[in-house]
Each structure stands twice: as structure tokens, then as C-alpha cells.
């Protein structure tokens, strides 16, 4: 197997200080938070719940994936970044955060992507779904480690990042990956304003046809993930999807984030909580609607 399930640490509740909050693409921001408690535990594909303190509207926390961690001058991991796409109540308010303000968090949550120990990984991202792929790629290529994870490094390992967005203005720069010799970036936009014109699934199909990729990790809109899963299956490549099921608690307490997972039962499936059994599932185990 090119992958192994990840060992994750217990989550904590913490308060974080905003370090910076910058627009990196249309309606897309990168929020840097100082919070050593979470930063030292966070692993690629895991998420946290974030809440704005002192108000009851919006009431619930919202889930965001780990983008990357950062270290202080001494090399200690002291904080992390998330990327957010502005679509509603909370993400709208996040844009107003300024350095020094605080937010409430609990995490890290979820299973994370399996550790990649194979030869060639394809990371497929749509829109804001690219953020978890940054840490994943850095870990797979041995550039960085996260939390407890210790992926054995291999100089031959390669990562192909396939990143689709609506148009050029919606694409974020993948600075972290650009200088890495073993990372290849392919971009697609719906309108052709950058990279391949059309869906990112087309270059993916071409790549997988070469028979070198031994696993696909994907995060993006539901329709795209469904298509990616089909393509991966047609090439017999194992595929993992990071689901963005709406969540109320993120910790397994409310049973609102359920997804249909195949099972040896009468109906052939059962609802599983995406926040604790996921958010990353092997595509072939899911019953996607």
C-alpha cells in the first residue's frame, strides 16, 4: 500500500491570536494564528473549528483545514495558517479580523490524509480545497513534519498538484511548492484565463493514464470530487476524498455531519460522522449522492 493511516493526537480547546489576515486571491484569505497548543499537533488534512468570541450570531464554530504551520526564530512551531473563502456569515466577518484580535478554536480534528509512503502522489484541488494539499505535499516530500507524523523520506517521491479554479483571479499562488524539484503544478481554470481551459479532471485523466501515480488525494466541490473518484477508479488508483460536509460541532457530539459509508448491513450502508470518522474517506467506501 502507498499509504498508511495517520496517528493523531487528542484535540484541545484554545484561544488564538491573529497574526495576519491577507487576501491572496479573489474572496480568498490567508489567516495566520498564533496558537502553539494546536500548531504542534496539527497534521495535513486535519481541521479545526473556529469561532468568534463574544457573540451568539454566528453561533456555531466553522470548520477549516490546516494550510500550513509556521515556526518562530528559534524554530519552534508556534502557529498555523488557514485559508478561507468568503461565502457567508462567519467567513464574511473573518475578513475584518486584524492582528492582535483573538478567536476561539478547538482541534485538531478528524483523521487527516493517510501518510503517503508511495512513489507518486496526485493532489487534486478545486478552489479553496487546495489549502490542505500544501502541508500534505510538504510532508510527503520530506520538507516538513507535522505533529507526531514521521513519514519516511524518499528522494524519489514525487507529488503532482492539480489545481482548478474558476478564473485566474481565483487562483492562489502556490509559493511553498513552486521551488520544490519533486513537485509539479498543473493549473486549470474554467475560462482558460490561466493554465488548462476546462476542468482539472482532464489533466488528471491524462496523468493517471501514464500509470505512475499510486494514490490520489482530493479536496474540492462535491461534483468535482465525484468525477475525480470516477477517473481514479477507471485507472485503478486508490483515491481519498476530503469531504466538506456541513458541521455543527466538529467533535462527534451532534450527529449532523453524517455521510453514507458502505457496510455489510441490510441496506449496504450506514451513516458515519464525517467529523470523527473523516473528513477523509477512501472514495470507494463512500456512497456519494
Amino acid at each position, binding site marked *: 500500500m502507498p499509504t498508511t493511516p495517520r496517528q493523531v493526537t487528542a*484535540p484541545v*480547546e484554545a484561544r488564538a491570536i491573529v497574526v495576519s489576515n491577507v487576501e491572496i486571491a479573489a474572496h480568498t484569505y490567508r489567516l495566520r494564528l498564533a496558537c502553539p497548543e494546536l500548531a504542534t499537533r496539527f497534521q495535513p488534512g486535519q481541521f479545526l473549528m473556529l469561532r468568534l468570541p463574544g457573540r451568539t450570531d454566528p453561533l456555531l464554530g466553522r470548520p477549516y483545514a490546516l494550510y500550513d504551520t509556521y515556526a518562530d526564530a528559534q524554530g519552534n512551531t508556534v502557529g498555523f495558517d488557514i485559508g478561507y473563502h468568503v461565502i457567508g456569515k462567519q467567513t464574511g466577518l473573518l475578513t475584518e479580523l486584524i492582528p492582535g484580535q483573538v478567536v476561539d478554536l478547538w482541534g485538531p480534528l478528524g483523521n487527516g490524509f493517510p501518510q503517503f509512503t508511495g512513489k507518486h502522489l496526485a493532489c487534486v484541488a478545486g478552489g479553496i480545497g487546495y489549502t490542505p494539499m500544501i502541508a500534505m505535499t510538504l510532508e510527503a516530500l520530506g520538507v516538513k513534519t507535522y505533529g507526531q507524523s514521521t513519514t519516511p523520506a524518499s528522494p524519489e517521491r514525487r507529488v503532482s498538484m492539480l489545481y482548478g479554479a474558476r478564473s485566474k483571479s481565483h487562483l492562489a499562488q502556490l509559493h511553498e511548492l513552486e521551488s520544490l524539484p519533486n513537485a509539479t503544478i498543473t493549473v486549470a481554470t474554467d475560462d482558460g484565463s490561466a493554465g488548462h481551459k476546462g476542468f482539472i479532471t482532464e489533466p488528471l485523466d491524462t496523468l493517471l493514464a501514464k500509470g505512475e501515480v499510486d494514490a490520489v488525494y482530493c479536496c474540492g466541490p462535491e461534483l468535482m470530487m465525484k468525477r475525480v473518484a470516477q477517473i481514479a477508479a477507471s485507472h485503478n488508483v486508490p483515491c481519498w476524498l476530503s469531504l466538506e460536509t456541513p458541521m455543527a460541532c466538529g467533535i462527534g*457530539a*451532534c*450527529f449532523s455531519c453524517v455521510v453514507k459509508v458502505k457496510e455489510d448491513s441490510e441496506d449496504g450502508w450506514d*451513516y458515519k460522522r464525517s467529523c470523527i470518522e473523516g473528513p477523509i474517506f477512501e472514495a470507494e467506501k463512500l456512497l456519494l449522492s
Partner: protein
Amino acid sequence: MNPLAVSLNRLQLKNPVLVASGTFGYAREMAPYLDLSGLGGIIPKTVTQQPRIGNAPQRTVETSSGMLNSIGLDNDGLETFIEKHLPYLTSLGTAVIVNIAGKTIEEFVQMTERLAPLSGIAALELNISCPNVTGGVDYGTNPEMAFELTQKVMAVSPHPIIIKLTPNVTDVTAIAKAVADGGADAVSLINTVQGMAIDWKRRKPILGNVIGGLSGPAIKPVALRCVHQVAQKVNIPIIGIGGITTFDDMMEFFVAGASAIQVGTTNFFKPGQSQNLLQELKAYVEHTNLPSITSLIKTLELPTVKKC
């Protein structure tokens, strides 16, 4: 003497801060965030006799200072609960109050009988008010049926019985009186308030089940009103529930007439808050030299109303 201890007829609690059914998973999920043994009691998610798959997503949606849910009692059934969750729950060193729901009186009675010989259970809470389950008769809205159900369950239960009531009735005191007459040890007030959310652009309800239950800070005034009305009219201990987030919220319920409280939706967005509330309560009791928390209960001073 422990100044935080409260008793609700046969149910003795070391403190009045409990966590509400359906908002705390099976407690395991919450263990990273607080010391579970400190809580006055834990009420796990409602169990039904047979497994239930629950309602189709979308199961929750946020509303102004609240949320709607239509989970639909998704659970693996009583036998799995006894095997998989009860041993863990009873090992925690706090009162475990098992919340059950039946479709018929017979089902309630059978579940009660099944739980009767099991050790480590502090009480049963009967969910006769879940708005998300169709098919069953809604015992929570009919005083005669609520009375009959309470009486029949009391007859077979060695455990104290709490009846959890719905606010979705014209007169909550009528139902509370019926279950008090039936012999219940206490009532919990309130379950969620029926509500709905609509995506007008798609002409669709947002919840998979169309209608759901509203909870969170938005319903606190409704809950306080229900606790107050029952406290004034019916002689039965009350556990107050509904939108409790802060210390002040909790104190308002005690003053209105609740002997204990349950923290619900707040567990979702401040997982450790029940423990914080307990600590604040402890600090208050110490600071004010209160001999017993019970001296706070139902201390509301009502204005003398002149009729015109």
C-alpha cells in the same frame, strides 16, 4: 455538607450542572475537553429499542443565535447501547441518566424493564417530546397519555424517572401536572421548539426533514417561561434546559424554579463550557457563603399584579 448537592425526589446529584441528551454524544467524544467526573450528571443521546438510521441530511442549520436540528434519533438501539456505551458511561464517576424514547407505551415499559437490573444508572429520562420522529404518538402533548405512560413506567422502574417535556403545547403546566400525578420524580424543561428554515431561491426547505427543533440562546426566554409556569403551578422538581451558555443564564433558571440545569447546544460551540459553569457556580457559592444551592431555587419575586 456539599453546598452544591441537590435532590430531585429520589435522584441525588452532587451538583446541578448536567449535560443534555443529543448534545454530548455518548460522552466519550467530549472527554478531551473537560473532566467528565466533575459534572452533576451526563445524559447520553436518546436510545430507542431498535436501531434508527435517523433523518436524511441536511440535519442541522444555524439560525439567528440558535440552530435547527432534525437528527431523528439516529442511534444503534438499546442492546448496542448497553453493550457499547453504558459500561464506559458508568465508569465515569458521575450520575448517568439514560434517555429513552419509545413509539408505544409498551416499548417504553419494555426498555425500562430491560434497564431495571443494570447497575450504575442514576435515573431514566423519558423523551416523550422528540419533534423529529413521525409514526409514534406524541405523548408529550396529551395529558392523559402522558399520565398513563408515567404511571406504567414508574410501576416497573427501580430508577428515578424524569419526564422530558416539549414546549410545543398550549399549556405546558397541564402536561407537567399529569406526569407529576403519574408519580414522576422530576420533569426536564424544555426540549427543542419546532421551527423551520427555507431557501426561498431554490423554493426548498433547508432541513432534510423539512421541520426541525430550535435550540440555543434563541430559545432561552421560552424555556424560562416554561420553567416559571410549571414551578408556580405544579409541585415537582424541575431540570431547566434551553439556551444556557453563561453563568447568568444558569442562575436565571435556578431563580425561576429549576433545581438543576442541562447544558445543550453550548456543548457544540464551547465543548468545555459545562465545566466552566460548574466552576463559576462553585466560586459563587464560596464567595457568598451560601450554605446550599437549594436556597436559590424559585426565589423569583413576582410583582403584585393589579387587575384593571
